[in-house]
């Protein structure tokens, strides 16, 4: 229920709605889309990536000297969890051996395992939490794929590369868009229930930055439907695919030829370090929302801490576009309990409109994400002061959802957005009758470990797919392109990495790169008490944490993880 002091502002939304509905029905854009200069202006002034201190040069490693997101630089310039010397026996006698090691049991990871099995190669999926505790599970809105007659894969290419400011790697965008229709068909064969017309035609909607209706969906549970289908399929092949849950990887293992040869795992249950020897390795660890960059709330799952970046970087893997972070335009701001939660972009695809406190449109509802977010931040900034404040001190703008049923007919919202409705029903807000309050939320890792169209990295035997990779989206991913991404590249990684595994021979296992990383840190005079990968964020109150850290002596590993678990602002003061 909205508090009383918002009643007057809610009335404004109702007042302006008939006019806005007229605009929506006219077939013309409801607000003029920005041109190139306007986009540049709003980005440079209001997008968090451009705020002072948002980026800094990384001091060590393959991207040394390059400006990257400050919180990521901190993670890269941190200590390893393992002491290489103490792992020697386990390098000689690995705890597990497999042909293909897949790190991360989200969408991309499951696909890699399924494709490897189809290719006759056995694999092992190691994952941080349970299988499917992943960003993949959470996607709501949909997936882009050029399936309709008015559309084409090359159209999709143009939209994607324009959304990415023409910086995406062309060969990756081609593969992404050209494989799209095939992914839709393949997922249906595995039993994904697409939203379809009576005659079987795919239902398609617009998303931010699309020039054709191209968003395919499963109500607003696309992620849960795809993830559960893939997991079910993975578990149908116990002879080909082994799964280890609650055993995240914390370092890659190389062999004496510098090829990737497996990983060191850390069992969250027993706090043991375990080694896996593998002929090839795929990183599918997803994104980094739980680093809470610039203090933002996030839409991401609990384990989204950018571990893949850290592991690959220490092993010499090159990163791309790590200076850009995606803030989703529509995170919830009210009620406080769901602050940061995602309001799917499909709401705007279906006609939902962002409005300021006067109930007025101030931006075209379907700009690319970075532009839309920057415009919302501008509206709430002291330059304009047109935001709506919550009792918790957050600011936001309205997202008019009641207009959706007026456009599409009553009942549409409840049927198409059951998840969204449920989220707000819990707090007595019926989004069919009342708008939502929204503000940008930390959503997606635009960049990542650089790959080519075979998902190869600069380290032989190491493949990357999904959100952990960099290059597909340039500096800005469009809605629906990351669900497509993990499907397209998860499959490709599975195919190419399993082909590689068929002929690869592994040399002597080594963690020398971890030793070198420590030396490089010392040479660069980096002083830090951070240990990475982070594995899990901590939401323990700081005073409790400090008491937990009072422990002396032969400390267990989780205790050292705890050091990571200060909020970013706290960490900065630690680094001075």
């Amino acid at each position, binding site marked *: 229920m909205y508090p009383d002091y918002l009643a007057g502002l809610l009335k404004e939304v109702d007042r302006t709605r008939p006019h806005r509905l007229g605009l929506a029905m006219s077939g013309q854009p409801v607000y003029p889309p920005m*041109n190139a200069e306007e986009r540049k202006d709003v980005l440079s002034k209001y997008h968090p990536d451009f705020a002072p201190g948002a980026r800094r040069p990384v001091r060590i490693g393959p991207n040394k000297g390059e400006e990257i997101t400050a919180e990521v630089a901190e993670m890269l310039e941190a200590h390893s969890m393992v002491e290489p010397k103490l792992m020697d026996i386990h390098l000689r006698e690995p705890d597990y051996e497999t042909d293909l090691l897949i790190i991360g049991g989200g969408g991309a990871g499951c696909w890699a395992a399924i494709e490897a099995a189809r290719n006759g190669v056995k694999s092992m999926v190691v994952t941080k939490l349970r299988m499917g505790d992943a960003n993949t599970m959470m996607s709501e809105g949909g997936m882009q794929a050029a*399936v309709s007659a008015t559309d084409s894969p*090359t159209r999709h290419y143009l939209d994607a590369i324009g959304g990415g400011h*023409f910086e995406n790697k062309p060969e990756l965008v081609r593969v992404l868009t*050209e494989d799209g229709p095939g992914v839709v068909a393949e997922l*249906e064969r595995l039993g994904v*229930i697409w939203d379809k017309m009576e005659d079987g035609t795919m239902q398609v909607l617009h998303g931010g930055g699309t020039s054709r209706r191209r968003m395919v969906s499963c109500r607003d549970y696309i992620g849960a439907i795809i993830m559960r289908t893939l997991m079910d399929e993975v578990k149908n092949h116990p002879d080909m695919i082994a799964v280890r849950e609650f055993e995240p990887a914390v370092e890659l293992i190389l062999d004496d030829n510098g090829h990737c040869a497996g990983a060191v795992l850390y069992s969250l249950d027993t706090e043991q370090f375990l080694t896996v020897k593998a002929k090839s390795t795929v990183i599918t660890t997803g994104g980094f929302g739980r680093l809470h960059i610039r203090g933002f709330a996030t839409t991401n799952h609990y384990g989204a801490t950018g571990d893949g970046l850290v592991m690959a970087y220490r092993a010499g893997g090159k990163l791309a576009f790590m200076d850009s972070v995606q803030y989703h335009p529509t995170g919830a701001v009210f009620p*406080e309990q769901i602050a940061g939660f995602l309001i799917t972009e499909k709401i705007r695809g279906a006609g939902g409109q962002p409005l300021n406190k006067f109930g007025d449109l101030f931006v075209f509802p379907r700009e690319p994400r970075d532009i839309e977010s920057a415009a919302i931040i501008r509206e709430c900034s002291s330059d304009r002061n047109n935001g709506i404040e919550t009792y918790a001190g*957050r600011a936001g703008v309205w997202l008019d959802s009641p207009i959706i049923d007026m456009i599409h007919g009553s009942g549409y919202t409840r049927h198409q957005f059951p998840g969204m409705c*449920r989220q707000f029903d819990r707090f007595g807000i019926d989004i069919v009758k009342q708008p939502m309050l929204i503000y940008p939320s930390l959503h997606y890792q635009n960049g990542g470990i650089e790959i080519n169209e075979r998902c190869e990295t600069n380290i032989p035997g190491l493949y990357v797919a999904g959100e952990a990779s960099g290059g597909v989206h340039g500096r800005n991913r469009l809605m629906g392109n990351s669900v497509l991404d993990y499907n397209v590249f998860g499959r490709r990684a599975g195919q190419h990495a399993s082909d590689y595994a068929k002929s690869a021979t592994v040399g002597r296992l080594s963690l020398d790169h971890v030793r070198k990383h420590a030396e490089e840190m010392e040479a660069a005079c980096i002083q830090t008490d951070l240990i990475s990968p982070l594995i899990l964020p901590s939401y323990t109150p700081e005073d409790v944490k400090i008491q937990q850290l009072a422990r002396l002596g032969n400390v267990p590993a989780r205790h050292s993880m705890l050091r990571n678990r200060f909020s970013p602002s706290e960490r900065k003061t630690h680094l001075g």
Partner: protein
Amino acid sequence: MNGEVGAVKSGERAPQQGGKRQRPQANMVNVYIMGKRHVVPEHATIMRAIEYAGHQIIRGAGCREGFCGACGTIYRLPGDYKLHTGLACTTLVQEGMSLTQIPAVPMEKAIYDLEKLTPDVRTIEAVYPVTFRCVACNTCSKACPQGLPVMDYIQAAMRGDVAKVADLAFDCVACGLCALRCPAEIVQHKVGILAKRLTGRYLHKESKELAARLKEVASNKFDAEYEELMVMDKTSLSKLYYDRDMEP
């Protein structure tokens, strides 16, 4: 941290919004986590309350937004005989709440080859015969934190109405709380997933448009256009992009 514990540090936002209102002091409530009393903010979800108490959750949290089912929780309230169920990430604490998380419910997933199944009652009988033990007590529906009519979808499964099961179980997060409460020991959400896969695979009409597009891709129809776009300089590409027409 922002958006997580009681205190709000709004990071980026704080300096940008003029005239910031003071947050009213949160009231505190008593909750009993696995029997031990902790004092937590009243607006906290169960998940935030557990963290506020100083626990690092390892098992029992996944998406934190109501999608993954990692955080199933059972609880009782003072003066109420009922054993309630909820998702820790979306359920609010209440004064006197006594709770414990159930992060995993043991159950066996049947192994099958979807290509060899038919979308009818024979498949349900063969893959999850336990389904037919249902005594229609409705305990499962009462336990479901998603508010799904679980009994109805199990009954539909017994009739072999696979599409109906898929429709009713669509929003299931596989928390397993229904299965835990079921006196007939049925594995409801596993039946749900099977029915969903059967529906997607066999009960939806094929899209002709999609089939046509797949043929076009296979015949390399777009190669020439791709090659042109891929080598285009940024200025021409940019012009093409900003001039492109928009489908309404």
